[in-house]
């Protein structure tokens, strides 16, 4: 009964929307330039989001693994970007970068870069959104990697050191393989988070300037709730869903393979 309830909740929504989608919507959106721009930005955003946060998260978890005073305190403090609601952090980032009176533009002006308008320039806005995403999601990666690292036996490193392995070799040939499974899982989860991410982009830039930071999700939202074109909006969402389901299933199989080995 419980399963049926959950099933009905999810599948029901998909079924209900059936009659509203015609093939014409699909051909329409697939020939639109804005769709492909959004797809490209989604790709960039996802790649930067996943690997950026992974590198930062892994580096920090390695750093926190060494004996540092007040270790636990830093662990909790560094999780804050992930705990704080996105609306709050987006507001704060707006204060930091958005207007010419904000601290960061003033700092840049003092450094001699002139007046930098972070969210008005398309390229800079893209960079800011990506950095913001990494800032939000690195704590998640840090937690995942910490828990993976915790399961690696330190004796293995001692043994490797006796055999004359350098630190880098220890990392490359012991740490990396040992945390490979968790790394895979965290990449998959983060890919899903990034592709689906709406508030991060929408709250910081609203998709602007000149649609530069429109991801597919934002585009679908704007199409439906600002231009009131329900059909094309759903079509965008469904193309996204289809791509994401395929990626998920392929990656999921991959994890299972790693598991079996």
């Amino acid at each position: 009964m419980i399963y049926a309830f959950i099933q009905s909740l999810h599948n029901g929504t998909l079924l209900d929307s059936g009659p509203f989608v015609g093939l014409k919507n699909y051909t329409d959106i697939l020939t639109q330039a804005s769709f492909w721009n959004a797809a490209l930005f989604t790709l960039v955003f996802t790649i930067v989001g996943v690997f950026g946060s992974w590198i930062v998260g892994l580096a920090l978890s390695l750093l926190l693994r060494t004996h540092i005073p007040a270790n636990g305190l830093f662990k909790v403090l560094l999780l804050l970007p992930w705990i704080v609601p996105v609306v709050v952090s987006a507001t704060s980032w707006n204060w930091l970068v958005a207007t010419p009176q904000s601290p960061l533009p003033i700092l840049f002006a003092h450094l001699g870069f002139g007046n930098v308008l972070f969210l008005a320039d398309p390229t800079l806005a893209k960079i800011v959104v990506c950095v913001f995403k990494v800032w939000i999601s690195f704590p998640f990666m840090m937690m995942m990697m910490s828990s993976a690292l915790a399961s690696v036996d330190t004796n293995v490193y001692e043994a490797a050191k006796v055999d004359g392995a350098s630190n880098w070799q220890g990392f490359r040939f012991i740490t990396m393989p040992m945390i490979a499974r968790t790394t895979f899982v965290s990449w998959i989860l983060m890919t899903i988070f990034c592709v689906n991410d709406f508030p991060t982009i929408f709250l910081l830039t609203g998709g602007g300037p000149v649609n530069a930071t429109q991801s597919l999700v934002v585009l679908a939202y704007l199409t439906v709730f600002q231009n009131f074109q329900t059909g094309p909006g759903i079509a965008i969402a469904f193309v996204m869903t289809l791509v994401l389901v395929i990626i998920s299933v392929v990656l999921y199989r991959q994890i299972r393979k790693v598991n079996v080995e």
Partner: protein
Amino acid sequence: MSTLSVRRARVKDQAAGSVTATRRRTQTEQRKRGGWWRFALIVVITALVLVPIIAVVGLSFQPSLGSTVKGNFTLENYSSIFTQTAVVTWLTNSLTVTVVTVVIAVAVAAPAGYVLSRARNKLVSGYSLVLFVVQSLPVVSAVIPLFILFAKFNLVDNLVGVTIIYVGSTMSVAIWMMAAYYDSIPIALEEAAWMDGASLFGSFTRIVLRNSLPGILSTAIFAFLLAWNDYLIALVFLRSDPNYTLPVGLETFFQQNATNWGLVMAVAVVMMLPPIILFSFLNRYFSVGGIGGSLAGR
């Protein structure tokens, strides 16, 4: 002759011992110095990372424009948001929706996760794959059809409607998390209970649930964060001021008072306090590692 050689050997030993001792000492000193470097590094990184959050708190205590208060510290922003704006209503809405979501999510996921954990066969693994796919669906693709559906049932601009969606979207991960926790409880416990004449349901409620408090808490935290932090669903489904939850409320408030940062940040502080308080008390129960492990284990 023999005593001499023994003495010589002893001297040699001592020399060797003092050499290794000094080497060890320099090593620990190096390690200590390395430790201080790392400590400094982590302090700098943490400070940089926390700048946006510190800014929020700091600005919320600063006098707003046109205020009569002198100096750099005031509680005026807080008193004015609580008396002059709808923040209290938004806070109540958010708390109600979140608490109801957490309770329902745990109540459903606890038995469902149990089934997923204990009854392993093709059907159940297939179902767990379905859960995984459902979880990865873009929220937007569900939101648009749901909006059309909810409009028919008068659930748009209705907190009940939003709660239903939160429960639905929490469910898949909540079930995974519970199942992962049950996996760590040995089945022998229940078998013993069955031997003593307990029913399947009885062994579940009396034995398994009592031992799963950490699992239940981490699932509850997950559901709390999801419902409390959500922006998209509230933005789409809540259309009038008295029904806003805090995220949408904060955003509209921000757009209306864009220059009055003190007030905006005071609302922001109100909004980020509950998750931070919850987290500081329960952080040891919160492990995303659990989510990842459950995903990888299936």
